[in-house]
């Protein structure tokens, strides 16, 4: 029997993310009242075929598999799941799986669309280009986790203000901790994105091609500026709590909604 295709491994992982999403809805309705390891187990099990799919594709390509949209999205989702598994060491952060699962599932299904998995004209990246793509995709994973902490903050804060009983019963982390996590993940994301974008200049220095300003580069600069301003506002103007949670969530929604379009519009990055 042939070794299953990497897309099949990924599809299996997405299926498990789907089950985890359904279970998340159940936990949301129950108000996160009891420690529950079901989501942790599901995401841990899904991590294995997901890792398998990236390794299989990476071995076939001979490099980190970030050469097209399918691979890029799969890589971001893998980073988010891996980070969740690390965070789940702290029992009160285990519920973040219920917030991450829908993201993993819906973007996983999206990534599985065959049109996104096109073989690029020149799929062989230099080490520098691989590093560039990997750092930037890692930063999106960090922004995704910041947004997840932001959504958890808004949920818990809403309950504390309006539904006091549910806030007491809920085992979500304290809002102060969620705010700190959202800020920390955003700081990490900005660091990774700055470094990733910084490698662009090294790529052009080592290449015979002249620098071309395209949609993706402009978009990346906007995203970088947006997150940098958020970080500055947090450090300099005390942007914390409710407003920061809203901002980090909206910023990530912007990234997710525009990521695909700008990628497809960019000849260099397609």
């Amino acid at each position: 029997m042939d070794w299953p295709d990497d897309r099949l491994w990924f599809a299996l992982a997405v299926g498990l993310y789907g089950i985890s999403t359904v279970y998340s809805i159940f936990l949301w309705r129950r108000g996160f009242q009891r420690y529950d390891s079901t989501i942790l187990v599901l995401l841990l099990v899904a991590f294995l075929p997901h890792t398998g799919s990236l390794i299989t594709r990476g071995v076939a390509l001979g490099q980190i598999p970030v050469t097209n949209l399918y691979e890029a999205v799969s890589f971001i989702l893998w980073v988010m799941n891996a980070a969740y598994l690390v965070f789940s060491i702290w029992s009160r952060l285990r519920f973040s799986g219920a917030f991450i699962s829908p993201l993993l599932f819906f973007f996983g299904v999206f990534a599985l669309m065959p049109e996104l998995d096109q073989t690029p004209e020149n799929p062989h990246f230099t080490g520098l280009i691989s590093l560039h793509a990997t750092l930037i995709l890692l930063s999106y994973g960090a922004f995704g986790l910041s947004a997840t902490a932001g959504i958890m903050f808004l949920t818990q804060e809403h309950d504390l203000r309006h539904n006091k009983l549910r806030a007491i019963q809920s085992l979500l982390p304290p809002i102060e901790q969620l705010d700190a996590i959202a800020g920390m993940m955003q700081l990490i994301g900005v660091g990774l994105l700055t470094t990733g974008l910084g490698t662009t200049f090294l790529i052009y220095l080592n290449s015979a091609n002249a620098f071309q300003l395209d949609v993706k580069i402009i978009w990346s600069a906007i995203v970088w500026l947006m997150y940098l301003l958020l970080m500055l506002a947090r450090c300099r103007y005390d942007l914390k709590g409710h407003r920061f949670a809203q901002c980090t969530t909206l910023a990530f929604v912007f990234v997710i909604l525009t990521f695909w379009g700008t990628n497809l519009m960019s000849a260099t990055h397609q």
Partner: protein
Amino acid sequence: MSLLVIGLSHHQASVELRERFAVTDYQLPAVLTEIRQKTDVEEMVLLSTCNRVEIYVAHDRPDENLIDSLKRHFAANRQSQAEATAEFYALSGRSGIRHLFRVASGLESMILGETEILGQLKQSYQVALQHRHTGRRLNRIFQTAFRAAKQVRTKTDIQRGPCSVAAAAVELAERIFDNLQDHRVMVLGAGDTSEKTARALLSRGVKSIIVSNRTYTRAQELADELQGRAVRFDDWADEFSRIDMVVSSTASPGYFLNRERFVELLAHRPSRPLLLIDIAVPRDIDPTVGYLENIYLYNIDDLKAIADYHRNRRKQEETQCDAIIESMIDKLLLDLSSRGGAGADSSPRS
């Protein structure tokens, strides 16, 4: 063999009576030795807390003789009149074991499901064990009681949720702040409930407590008790930028903290959550303050509703707890009878 329990508790005995029979930790080994010698029972554990005084005995004699003997000698030991022992209850066999398991699980406590009693029971058992007042049978029964309490705690919600205003305030604080050790509390008005709330927060390790009261000497007294600091009532606003929680219970006839005053105070405060516990009636804090960003405002009714809900919920859990306990008793009696010691008084379930 049967387990016999005699004792008195908050359910039927007044505090005056309970304190006459109370045994301190220091006295416990000597009391155990004396009563065992005089009643000639093989195994005995004595539990003495502020809510109950109970003697657990494993014996092979007819209950009636032993009950009288235990009551008489215990009363004599505590230098109490014999007629006071009329308040004592006596439970034997399965009922006695059930009682022990319920005590261990907090089902006989004043606050249903509280956990402190388990620690006290373990300590009493440990003293009896160390001084060789227990044997194979009581060891088995007590170990199973501790396991039953653990099962009740993990498989039901009997211990979940705050059951008092002070506990509800602490729970809310823990939902907002990452670590209470880094946070400061201000108590405005030195009333009884605010004192209890401050004490509850202090027990969870809040960094410091500032007390302010219209009568400064009263503020100083409370601050001393809470190992905090007193400030004059005119100066409390100066501390506002450094505090994270306010427990307010002044005797003000209306809102002494309105929205405008708060906006003014918040302007000098870094952006971080502020928990306001307004337990005064009439209320001290204008409810519209709760709409401000970073402000979490709860009044006495909010806290009472939380406490009432959890008390009722614990009550509902009691049936499930009893089912766990009955199943553990069945296993224990089977185990005791198979070992020949015979929980032998395996009277039917009632």
